[in-house]
């Protein structure tokens, strides 16, 4: 399944509302992310940004509102279909296939874009051979990008945390996605790992639209062109990061919270 390329924003949400029983997690959030943009979503704990994120990439179904990715409505589309249409995401915690090697992890990542029947493989059809070649090339590219060239045969589970996060991005990159969702990619990283990670995201950004949910304001400031602040399920402001961080309501919301880790 492919989503037709259309003019307009890469990701667009209108009046997203999400209620869990009597609790309103999100109340009327709208956003437009332009193609090629790195867009941040920030907010205090429990503000609803993870819920918003899950809704934007189709894992959670909103109570009301519409989401369009590359101009196509994704309501009711199963997550694996969305994944196959050029959208990739990383997860906050369960980031990699821990029992498999780095190489196998990347292989799993290619699932979305590789479809060859048994016959094609047995008889070595031309398209199969070509895709095989393309795959090999892609693996090498991604391994170099994420700096795991020398670790390809190691089990993902034994890698350092920051390295696992890089691998998670590598898995997402295998399908060469147009849109990437990164869920708190720098959470739990030390300063060095965070700096490496920011460099990695900058390296992969050209030609892609990237959405990041993040606690670490330094990451948002360094990467994002614009950021949306969500407080108590409401959108407060969308602007450049330094404007956003000085917005009075944002300052109030974060008062006492540590935004300068």
């Amino acid at each position, binding site marked *: 399944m492919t989503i037709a390329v259309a003019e307009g924003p890469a990701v667009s949400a209108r009046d997203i509302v999400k209620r869990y029983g009597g609790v309103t997690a999100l109340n009327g959030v709208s956003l437009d992310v332009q193609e090629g943009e790195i867009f941040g979503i920030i907010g205090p704990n429990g503000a609803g940004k993870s819920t918003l994120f899950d809704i934007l*990439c189709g*894992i959670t179904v909103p109570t009301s509102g519409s989401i369009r990715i590359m101009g196509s409505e994704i309501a009711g589309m*199963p*997550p*694996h279909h969305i*994944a*196959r249409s050029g959208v*990739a*995401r990383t*997860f906050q915690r*369960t*980031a*990699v*296939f*821990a*029992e*498999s*090697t780095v*190489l*196998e992890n990347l*292989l*799993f*990542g*290619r*699932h*979305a*874009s*590789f*479809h*060859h029947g048994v016959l094609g*493989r047995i008889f070595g059809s031309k398209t199969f051979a070509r*895709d*095989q070649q393309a*795959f*090999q090339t892609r*693996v090498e590219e991604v391994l170099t990008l994420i700096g795991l060239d020398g670790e390809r045969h190691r089990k993902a589970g034994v890698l350092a945390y920051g390295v696992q996060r890089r691998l998670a991005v590598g*898995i*997402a990159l*295998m*399908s060469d996605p147009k849109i990437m969702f990164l869920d708190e990619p720098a959470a739990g990283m030390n300063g060095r790992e965070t700096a490496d990670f920011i460099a990695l995201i900058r390296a992969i950004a050209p030609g892609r639209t990237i959405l990041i949910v993040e606690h670490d304001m330094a990451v948002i400031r360094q990467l994002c062109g614009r950021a949306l602040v969500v407080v108590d399920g409401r959108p407060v402001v969308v602007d450049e990061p330094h404007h956003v961080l000085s917005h009075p309501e944002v300052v109030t919301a974060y008062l006492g919270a540590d935004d300068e880790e």
Partner: protein
Amino acid sequence: MIDREQVAVSDKKRSGRTAREASYVACALIAIAVFAYTFTDPFVVTLAGYTCAFALFALSINIILGGVGEVPLGQCLFFGVGAYGAAIGMGKLGLPFEVSVLIALVLSVVLAAIIGVITLRLTGAYFSIVSWGLTGVAMVAATNLEEITGGPLGLFGFPPIEIGPLQLSDPQTYFAVTATILLLAILFLVALRRSPFGAAMDSVRQNPHLARSVGVDVARVRLKAFMLSAPFAALAGALAVPYTQIVTPEVFSVANTVDGLLMVLLGGAQLVVGPVIGAAIFTLIPQAMNLDPNIRILVFSSIIILIMMFAPGGLHQLGVALRDRLGRKTDDDRSR
């Protein structure tokens, strides 16, 4: 998706591996032949045949446990379908054994499709409990449908069981047939594990959310695995009949599944032949040591606890850990 082996293994290594695997298969065939025609004690040979049949059941359980990571407490349902299918086909309908078995296999797949669509929405303990519950339904049905199943007494007194010219009542033939079928099943499962579908199962087992996010249809993979596991269990149930000579509602007992699960845990879920190793240990040791059935439960429970504590991946994990440790040592030496 790509053939994972194409990437992980170079051509040279691959052809070397194919040769090595072909030699394993040849060795296994020779071992089967030697065992079948040198051991003359009919009891031992028949028991070995039954062990092979039950190992098939353990393999079926492991398609779910080692494949997609669920604990299929209801797997004996399909074992029972195979056993009753063979018994009813032969005893009530007068069909040949092989035809009865084929029908039972098809039935088991259909049943798995229906049950799977309903129960595979559940995960973890919920899936296990619901599938266990369904075996209770099957047991009650088998007990009460006396016309078809013979009721609580079950079905027995079959005509001589044969597959074409092969007399399964002859211990040697019985063993040779079940062992060969087991070998074919192992070969199939090895190929399956290396296929794109095997990779998809592995990704679903390890991390369903991440699998979904890279485009794997998780529900479909789980259902396919379940439907694939059912005929293995049914075949095991049918092949057990020549040994047991009776099929009672007890085949639907969860104790049956637990035996199979123990074999898997004993041998290791992540190795295709793990369950077979487990089945061999599980059946042969109590016989060799002449254990009382009650003591057997005690002994195996203790062994399982110890294995889960020290080698949660099963006995073969100990071997792998040893090999890795030795391998890492040489790697380190090289890097120095």
